[in-house]
């Protein structure tokens, strides 16, 4: 295994090297770096040109320029990069650090979201093959495949940001809007849950009524500007999480595990009051992480000691329930601060820029500040990849369901739920891992477009400026980060592959 990984790393480095030569050569041949100065009528034209030639080593032949860059870049292996300077003399190292931080944050969130949502959709559409839900998702996937990103981004900027900001200033929903929301939800839930026509009709009506009621209640109490969950909703959510994990593992009939889960919820309620003083304004993310760790340990212990025969399964269930409960408590706190944030920033969703400089606020307000900048580019990037993941997962899942061992599993008397989650899903995920690596690179490419539309000062912008000025420095900086990240993702994908498939483990 180690040998395999080392081999992969060596190959990747060779490929990175080849790629750098190609990129460098292509970039410096993409135009005339002095074009704008040649047409300039500035007094100090000659001086400016001289300075640029100096900065970019334009007096050297191309291979010497490349080798100079390579020598500097190869110092990255010992963590002492020297990527030279841009045409205006700025240090690329420091440019890159800022830009990479901004872009990778954006792309990583999108990748994680796309994988989770895409795979979930793929599995659901495979299970509910040829249902209305399946056709809808399939059509949506095709639509998103065919959507020009830049066009969609401009649309989203208008609808998602400008109009939302107008609406949130004085939020009110018309009855028609509420009805539409309720109907869409109901259709979705009914077709995902499936069953015969009667059951679907009941699901549809119940969901529609509940959603309409909730939306109506939210609207009348001014929830949109002052949202919160409140303890009752948190407890309800915690119980739902418990039910979910129980059905996903052993079913609802295991008394000991069910009791362990209920104890976890009870402990969570106590914890809600105990941690309240800390949660008003936590100092930083470490506090949150520490609380998560405590949650895992405590709920795991509850499962382990109360779980009976299947203590391991019980611990999984209680940890899942505990984390679900903790998440709801966190969300409750976060939502409670939305009103305060609106006071600071009346038009919350930003259409441009990767951050208000020097934003000061509570822990929660900072999360919102961070979130509202990310939200639009993240949606665009996520939506593009979801389409791919859901299609691949669906195909892979359908292929797996036809395998002999699935028939064996059914013949043992396992329920559909266990057959899908325990036997089919893991096998279906194996081919997906390789797609992740490809997708990551594509997303970094897509970021070039998204960043330019949302005015995000990230890698994409750096690449764009560099290329427009025929300046290899920033372009190669972009390449190093994108290539390095892709190589890393590829390796993670390989490891995930080996983890999922025992046949290639050595």
């Amino acid at each position, binding site marked *: 295994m180690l040998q395999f990984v080392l081999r992969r790393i060596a*190959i*990747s480095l*060779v*490929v*990175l090297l*080849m*790629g750098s030569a*190609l*990129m460098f050569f*292509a*970039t410096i*041949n*993409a*135009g005339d770096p002095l074009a704008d100065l040649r047409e300039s009528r500035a007094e100090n034209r000659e001086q400016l040109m001289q300075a640029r030639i100096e900065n970019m080593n334009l007096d050297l032949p191309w291979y010497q320029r490349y080798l100079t860059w390579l020598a500097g870049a190869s110092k990255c292996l010992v963590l002492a990069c020297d990527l030279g300077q841009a045409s205006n003399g700025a240090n690329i190292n420091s440019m890159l650090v800022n830009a990479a931080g901004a872009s990778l944050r954006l792309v990583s969130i999108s990748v994680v979201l796309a994988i989770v949502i895409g795979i979930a959709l793929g599995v659901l559409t495979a299970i509910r093959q*040829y249902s209305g839900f399946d056709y809808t998702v399939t059509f949506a996937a*095709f*639509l998103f*495949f*065919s*959507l*020009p*990103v*830049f*066009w969609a981004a*401009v*649309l989203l900027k*208008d609808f998602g940001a400008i109009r939302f900001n107008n609406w949130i200033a004085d939020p009110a929903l018309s009855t028609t809007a509420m009805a539409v929301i309720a109907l869409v939800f109901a259709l979705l839930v009914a077709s995902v849950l499936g069953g015969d026509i009667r059951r679907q009709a009941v699901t549809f009506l119940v969901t529609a009524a509940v959603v309409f009621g909730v939306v109506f209640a939210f609207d009348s109490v001014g929830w949109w500007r002052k949202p919160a969950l409140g303890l009752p909703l948190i407890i309800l959510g915690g119980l739902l999480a418990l039910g979910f994990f129980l059905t996903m593992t052993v079913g609802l009939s295991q008394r000991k595990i069910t009791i362990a889960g209920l104890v976890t919820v009870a402990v969570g309620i106590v914890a809600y009051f105990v941690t309240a003083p800390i949660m008003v304004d936590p100092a930083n993310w470490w506090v949150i992480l520490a609380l998560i760790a405590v949650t895992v340990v405590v709920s795991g212990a509850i499962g382990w000691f109360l779980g009976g025969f299947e203590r391991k399964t019980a611990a999984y269930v209680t940890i899942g329930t505990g984390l679900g409960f903790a998440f709801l408590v966190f969300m409750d706190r976060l939502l409670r601060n939305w009103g305060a944030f609106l006071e600071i920033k009346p038009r919350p969703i930003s259409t441009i820029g990767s951050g208000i400089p020097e934003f000061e606020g509570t822990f929660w307000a900072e999360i919102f500040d961070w979130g509202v900048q990310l939200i639009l580019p993240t949606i665009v990037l996520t939506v593009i990849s979801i389409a791919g993941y859901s299609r691949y997962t669906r*195909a892979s899942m*359908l292929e797996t369901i*036809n395998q002999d061992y699935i028939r064996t599993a059914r013949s043992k008397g396992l329920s559909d739920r266990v057959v899908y989650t325990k036997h089919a899903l893991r096998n279906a995920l194996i081919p997906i891992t390789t797609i992740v*690596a*490809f997708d990551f*690179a*594509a997303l*970094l*490419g*897509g970021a*070039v*477009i998204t960043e*330019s*539309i949302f005015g995000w000062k990230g890698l994409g912008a750096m*690449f*764009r400026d560099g*290329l*427009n000025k*025929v300046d290899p420095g920033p*372009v190669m900086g*972009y*390449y190093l980060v*994108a*290539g390095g990240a*892709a*190589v890393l993702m*590829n390796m993670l994908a390989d490891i995930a592959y080996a983890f999922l498939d025992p046949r290639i483990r050595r």
Partner: protein
Amino acid sequence: MNDRPITPGDDRPDQDLPQEPGSGREGLSPIPAQQDKDAPQTETFSVEKQLDLSQKSYSQGQLVRRRFIRHRGAMVSLAVLIFITIFAFTSIGYGWIPGWWDKDYWRGGLNIDRGRPTLQLWPFSAGEHPFGQDNAGKDYFALTMRGTQRSLIVAFTVGLFSTILGTIIGAVAGYYRGWIESILMRITDLFIVIPALVLAAVFGKMANGGIWPLAFLLSVIGWTGLARLVRGEVLSLREREFVTAAEAIGTGSGRIIFKHILPNTIGTIIVSATLAIAATILTESALSFLGWGVRAPDTSLGLLISTYQNSFQSRPWLFWWPGMIILAIALAVNFLGDGLRDAFDPRQNRTAD
């Protein structure tokens, strides 16, 4: 070595399902065996399908065509695509061939009613400027058609060239293995490392606005995906017994590749060519949007969106028309590809449930 016997008597339920005539399974339907006059007595109870020589014979290609024509989504998409293509080329003409639309895409004019579109669906009337006018009073219909032409030319050229390149390289790499294969695999690795759009951007800038150099350079990027696919198919096909049989009778490598292997990968090739076309439409318009594709004074759909993205609030039609056309072309091509995939690979076909 897999020399395990393949099992006779395997009649799992899914194999009992009959399929269309000519799929090789129709004999499983319980038609009583007819007795051949000369055949030995055993024929009566043979499980072998009787050759029905009165039935029309279908080649694989004909079967695929039939399945494709029955695919409603694909046929609608094909119609849409043909319609857009014909419209784009005949309306403003191409090169020295004049079109039937009387306005030119480069000529400005007076803005009538702030350049609003005059298109009316019911009762139908195109009006003076069906798609409206831009800020300088240019006819937006002519502009959009010009853009559509450019996008289609680039997309189909890239689709064609990258398919040819990818097929040949993939087939050679898969059949001969060895160093050709390792080079191919390294080059595909390269495309994991460099985002395709980024390389396309650099190449697009090199092309300096001309659509033919742009198409050429995009083909250079586009072939790797197909090459990988073809290589994979060739790898599995060369282990199939009919290829081994061809090798055993002394068939030359060229004949094996072109007569025995490639015809069997035609499904993959065609499907992937359509997907390449769809991808290129999007890439080209994205490049033009960013300023590295087609450049003014010529125009393309991406460039139009880029130029007028800020007039979304004031003159939304300048933004909607090109965007909708890109979407329509890409969607049609993608659905076409899906229909073709279903036609070539009936395993995933929608059976009655």
